[in-house]
């Protein structure tokens, strides 16, 4: 093995960086982006046809609603619906598909059938932030808190605290989140009247202006309290248990024993040796859970009457508002893919072993 002097190694390292960049762009990032685009395309196409395969089309849905709720006769309802929609559902699926794809390529998600003329993009822009906000805050809380508690449980394993926390964690993580939401609403809201549920409805108080003020921030957190509480309660158990078992495994690793033998301070071992390594695998799970929670947000948002994409999706399904449904699918899919990218990036950043490969 020859030793290269510093003067020699600098240019060769610079060359290395270029080389790696090229390889990376050629192999890694580009391939991932292409794969992601392909996935998005397949999802768009699949959902396009699936939503149109659903029984009852938008007009029928509206007709049924008019008859059910307003007592219209079928003919009246039919006329009203035709006037409102003014869309050509008779065109072949294929033509519709090509049209949709063409518009999509221009960044146009189409307009809603039901709220006539409203661009889908605008509707999503109105609803999506609330879902991202409530889910994001919840995940942040449950992830950090869960990791912390998980580590404490691992360090105090066998203690009363560990048993109590493990039991609570297992219980809350096995009950469906909407049931937990209902219990919160029924007990804290209706039975014990701790939460004024009628006031807490919606994503913000009526008349509140979105701005960067203390009042606004307080208000949106106030309205998101119950969804966030539900999300946190039902997801934190998973993080706790995962972190506990990872920590126990990490504590058994040679490098932790060696770190102790090296006389390192306990605080340093807990953070940089145990904590960092034990939390690594959780970051991949984080991406999966983002997808799961955003996808399942419909139930929680329905229960708490919270205006997020879940609500938008439910409404659009009921109205058979195809463009909106597809828009929501597209957005959630992209969110999931982005979350995956982010998780991979964070993982690679935290774990040098991945970085090199």
């Amino acid at each position: 093995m020859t030793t290269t002097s510093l003067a020699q190694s600098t240019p060769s390292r610079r060359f290395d960086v270029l080389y790696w960049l090229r390889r990376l762009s050629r192999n890694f990032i580009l391939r991932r982006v292409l794969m992601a685009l392909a996935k998005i395309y397949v999802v768009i196409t699949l959902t396009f046809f699936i939503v149109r395969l659903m029984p009852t089309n938008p007009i029928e849905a509206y007709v049924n609603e008019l008859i059910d709720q307003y007592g219209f006769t079928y003919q009246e309802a039919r006329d009203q619906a035709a006037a409102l929609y003014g869309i050509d559902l008779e065109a072949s699926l294929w033509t519709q598909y090509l049209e949709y794809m063409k518009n999509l390529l221009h960044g146009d998600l189409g307009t809603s059938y039901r709220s006539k003329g409203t661009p889908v993009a605008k509707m999503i822009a109105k609803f999506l932030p609330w879902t991202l906000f409530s889910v994001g805050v919840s995940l942040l809380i449950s992830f950090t808190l869960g990791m912390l508690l998980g580590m404490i449980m691992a360090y105090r394993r066998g203690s009363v605290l560990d048993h109590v926390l493990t039991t609570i964690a297992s219980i809350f993580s096995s009950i469906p989140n909407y049931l937990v939401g209902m219990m919160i609403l029924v007990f804290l809201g209706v039975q014990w009247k701790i939460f004024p549920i009628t006031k807490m409805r919606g994503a913000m108080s009526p008349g509140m202006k979105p701005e960067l003020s203390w009042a606004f921030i307080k208000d949106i957190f106030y309205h998101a309290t119950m969804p966030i509480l539900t999300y946190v309660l039902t997801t934190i158990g998973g993080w706790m248990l995962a972190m506990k078992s990872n920590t126990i495994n990490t504590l058994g690793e040679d490098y932790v024993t060696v770190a102790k033998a090296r006389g390192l301070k306990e605080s340093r071992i807990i953070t940089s040796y145990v904590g960092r390594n034990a939390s690594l695998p959780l970051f991949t799970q984080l991406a999966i859970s983002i997808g799961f929670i955003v996808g399942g947000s419909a139930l929680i948002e329905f229960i708490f009457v919270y205006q997020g994409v879940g609500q938008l999706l439910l409404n659009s399904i009921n109205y058979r508002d195809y463009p909106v449904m597809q828009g929501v699918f597209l957005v959630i899919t992209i969110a999931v893919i982005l979350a995956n990218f982010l998780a991979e990036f964070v993982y690679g950043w935290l774990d040098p072993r991945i970085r090199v490969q």
Partner: protein
Amino acid sequence: MKSATENVPSDGQFTLKVEDLWVTYLAERGKVKAVRGVSFTLRPGETLAFIGESGCGKTTLGLSLIRLLPSTAEVEKGHILYRRDTEVMDVLQMNDRELRQFRWKECAMIFQGAQNAFNPVLRIWAQVLDTARSHGVTNKKEIRQRMEDLFRLVQLEPERVLRAYPHQLSGGMRQRVLIALGLLLKPPLVILDEPTTALDILTQRSVIDVLRDIKEKMDFSLILISHDLSLAAELADRVATMYAGKLVEVANVWDTYYHPLHPYTVGLIHAVPTLAGEREELISIPGSPPDLIDPPKGCAFHPRCPYATEKCRTEEPPLIPVAQDHEVACWHWQQVQEDGGQRMMVYSEAKAG
């Protein structure tokens, strides 16, 4: 206990003195008595090797010396006296602060399976800094200088290694990094637990040579724990043979290999093939090591021993000095001495045939 003290040179110098150490593990079936009353003295500057097969308690013994036993283990009784200059401390009585300072600065333990001894997410340099800072050494330049010297000593390129992540180094390199790191704070006592297991022959050789080299150049006492008899033959001044949680023989390296007096040591030495010359007959020790939850009464080796008599089944032989630098725990060591362990070999063949 007495016997251990008698072997200390007349000036009473020792680096480490272990007295009647008992360690147990809690298992599902009961208490595993892993170390059962071990006493020994480590003299300044010497290399003492502990040999024995898996489950004999040698690793537990090593871990208990720096109190790194897993939470299921417990030191039931005993003393681990460590001496620096004129001060003598019992490791088992140290508080957390003292213990942390004792580890690595006074006693560096280099583990088996160095493959995994380093935090995978930190560069070697960061881990070196961690170690130094924990013991109050904060001058980066000084640390770097010392580390570079040590790396050269163990034949590593300092620049490259310090910048590397553990996974970028080969197994042999990592083992040498750990050895160098062990010497960073100039500890008077180093414990090596299976330092060459899982390394290839040529790499193993380089590690052994490095160990011998640094041992010559620096002044420290060394405890070597290994199942590999040839490693002890290479490096040890004295060898302690362990069986079923006890020391059965402690002798200088020549006596251990050429004139063993405990039947178990005889069996062990003659079970290992050598390279030079013609093919020799080897023996295997019939039976298997005892269950340490309920070890046999008397001498733990008696169920596998051809010399065993009624006394061996009932009374436990103490470790007694029988010659200069030679202690053995066997009621019949004189017979072994007379027949040169022949009965052990004949017995093994009879059982195998």
